[in-house]
């Protein structure tokens, strides 16, 4: 009984950590620009697929991973520079539609530049499962959880302890005042897109040894990360993490105790419930309009 429950819990925490990383990417870009970046899932795909193909070209795996993160970051920069910045005066809805277009473009590009097959990566440190109270956890799951925790702590430090992190928060709250104190708002936006892309790519690399990857994985992982961000409250970093973990665990428990056919259904039932009954999420700001 306990073993079974723990088994589902471990699997849920692992995918929850991935959703949290993707959700954090949504939160970062939303905070800086109020844009919901539906190309977020493509950064996840670029991380995994990029690593697979760079490694296949003979580059050692850790370096290939790093290069893939850089590749995704550059694509993130390009998205901000070429699509978002050029249309600065467009409404937020227009910008969101642009990100949907960009995601289709990136997916198409990946299909051509890479291929349509499924690929996987070797686990970072073997596949010998570890027994805990009758359940097992793979070393790769520990990598996922460990790296997620490290990233969250680094982001926490960045936003609460450095002036640059606070400048991002200030820009999010009041772009006009931020410009008046000399903050380069365009540079902040660029940085947020780059950072989100890097986060997504890391998530994509971490999950590939567990679930494998192909050019289309970004669609579902992006949507799950979006669910995490909405459930936690858009724009709240802590909310995205909590939302991701809740979503991952709920999915795993549902798949285990009800039916694995319903795994994805559970995520979307949760997001619909959140949107109907709690539109500002668990930790989001209450939506107040300034008059």
């Amino acid at each position, binding site marked *: 009984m306990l073993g079974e429950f723990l088994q589902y819990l471990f699997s849920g925490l692992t995918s929850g950590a991935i959703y949290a990383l993707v959700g954090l990417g949504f939160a970062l870009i939303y905070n800086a620009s109020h844009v919901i970046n539906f190309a977020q899932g493509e950064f996840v795909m670029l991380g995994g697929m990029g690593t697979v193909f760079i490694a296949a070209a003979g580059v050692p795996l850790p370096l290939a991973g790093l290069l893939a993160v850089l590749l995704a970051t550059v694509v993130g920069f390009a998205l901000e520079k070429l699509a978002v910045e050029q249309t600065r005066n467009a409404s937020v809805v227009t910008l969101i539609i642009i990100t949907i277009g960009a995601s289709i473009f990136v997916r198409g590009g990946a299909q051509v530049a890479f291929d349509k097959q499924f690929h996987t990566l070797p686990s970072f440190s073997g596949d010998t499962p570890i027994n805990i109270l009758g359940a097992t956890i793979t070393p790769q799951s520990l990598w996922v959880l460990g790296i997620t925790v490290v990233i969250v702590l680094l982001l926490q430090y960045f936003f609460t302890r450095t002036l640059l992190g606070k400048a991002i928060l200030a820009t999010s709250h009041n772009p006009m005042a931020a410009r008046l104190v000399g903050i*380069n708002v365009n540079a902040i936006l660029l940085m947020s897109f780059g950072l989100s892309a890097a986060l997504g790519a890391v998530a994509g690399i971490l999950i590939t040894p567990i679930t494998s990857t192909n050019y289309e994985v970004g669609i579902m992982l992006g949507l799950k990360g979006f669910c995490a961000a909405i459930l936690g409250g858009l724009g709240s970093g802590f909310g995205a993490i909590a939302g991701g973990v809740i979503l991952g665990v709920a999915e795993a428990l549902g798949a285990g105790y009800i039916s694995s056919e319903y795994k994805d259904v559970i995520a979307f039932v949760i997001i619909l419930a959140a949107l109907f009954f709690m539109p500002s999420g668990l930790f989001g700001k209450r939506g107040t309009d300034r008059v």
Partner: protein
Amino acid sequence: MLLDVKGLKSGYGRIEALHGIDLSVNKGELVALVGANGAGKTTFLRALSGVQGVTAGTIRYAGEDITRASPQKRVTLGISQVPEGRQVFGPLTVEDNLRLGAFKRRGEDPAADLERMYGLFPILKKKRLDAAGTLSGGQQQMLAMGRALMAHPDLLLLDEPSMGLSPLLVGEIFNIVQMLKEQGVTILLVEQNAYAALAIADRGYVLETGTITLTGAGTDLLANDQVRAAYLGM
């Protein structure tokens, strides 16, 4: 001449809000720009800070043409603005707001500047770890001024510092403005409260629907019949 503006035009879409403004500020001066609501005062200050587009004319600062310079470049050159309605960063602490004022000088230790601001505005020291959004209107005004001063400006642009404050607080804010002037900060003060502004200004400009209609020494403008009738209700 520290600031020299010639023929400045600006607007929103096809509506022109400023129809060719000529205005100058000498080093060490306190210049008041007064006018009714909607005259274009805020648009003018935003154009000076580079956050509002300019369609014609030039802005020269310390001899350099900055008409097309970025806002952050202007802060580096020494122009700081205290915007209308304070615009403090509400969720951040008072101290973080001040630190962000020195954003262009990051790398330098802000401790001495922070102490100077806390000396100037003791209430901010008491509230230094509170979220800026929880401060009262007067305290937010002080914070906005402190934030602008953290950049070490040579030219301070003040947009309606008295707006929404009690008469007592208005007096306090204007005392601080005068003190800053005595410390050598050049100030361009934009106010609807024409009497208070002209009373402490060396020179003044009257702005009416996008055009400068009168200019002269502060005390002369205070005595001017047109100004008295239009802005002072006398």
